[in-house]
């Protein structure tokens, strides 16, 4: 779904810290995720227009799709999108969906999404928390670097091991 895309916005905003939290609550019929960063942030006028598909600060292309698509999909599944941002401080994007809604985008391969983002940008402090019905799994750049004692986290030979580890842990909390 949209997570990879919204994470890329944070990276493009020059964030050095990014946090992703996903919360699934099947009893409350709710799925929400929250991505916060300490990137360049957006000025109020940009923020107002940001989910307009014909708005983008890109110079290479006329439309920006990421946030407007996300808003559309969230609203279509009885949810909402909230964006808080302040220039120079950072941005928080929070999307909320009705869990069982037929139009809710699927989470997809969240393990891959998280690991690709984390390993492709070793310089960014990335934090991931996934909670499903009260049980959670957490992974962060700091903890990973610490466990690896100097092996680079973007080492391709490491990737399958990491992916398997994250998948196992997510399976334990019944994600996917």
């Amino acid at each position: 779904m949209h997570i990879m895309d919204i994470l890329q916005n944070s990276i493009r905003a020059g964030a050095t810290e990014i946090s992703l939290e996903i919360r699934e609550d099947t009893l409350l019929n709710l799925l929400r995720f929250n991505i916060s960063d300490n990137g360049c942030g957006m000025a109020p006028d940009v923020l107002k227009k940001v989910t307009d598909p014909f708005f983008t600060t890109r110079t290479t292309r006329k439309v920006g799709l990421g946030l407007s698509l996300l808003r559309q999909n969230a609203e279509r599944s009885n949810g909402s999108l909230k964006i808080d941002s302040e220039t120079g401080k950072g941005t928080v994007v929070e999307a909320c969906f009705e869990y069982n809604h037929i139009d809710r985008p699927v989470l997809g391969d969240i393990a891959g999404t998280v690991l690709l983002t984390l390993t492709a940008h070793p310089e960014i402090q990335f934090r991931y928390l996934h909670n499903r019905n009260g049980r959670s799994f957490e992974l962060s750049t700091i903890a990973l670097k610490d466990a690896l004692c100097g092996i680079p986290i973007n080492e391709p030979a490491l990737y399958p091991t990491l992916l398997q580890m994250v998948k196992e842990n997510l399976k334990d909390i019944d994600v996917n």
Partner: protein
Amino acid sequence: MEKIKSLADLRKMQDDLRAKISLREKSNEPDKRIQVKVAMATCGIASGAKEVMEAFIEEFTKRNIDAVVTQTGCMGYCYAEPTVEITKPGVEPITFGYVDVKKASKIIDKYILNNELVDGIIPVNYHSIDN
């Protein structure tokens, strides 16, 4: 391979990992890594950039090729997404367009391992190939 369930397990198997890596580093010069950048704007992601990125990592691991795979944002070639920029040590970067999982493996076989070109090179970079 034993199952790695936690960061503690990972810490324990470090020596194995390190052995694997240093073996390779001895056969290559460490600062001469191949760099692969996958464009990850909305358009790239929508056309399969994530799968392409995974395919590169998987192939490099399987074939024990010393390379780093990273992401970039928009490279401005929406029409040709997913696009991948490959930098071989000492050579100008080349950008390949319309990359899918199959083509990723072709790029590795032909360009990365044998210096042969593969179709779908984005023309702006074409002149910069020197062999």
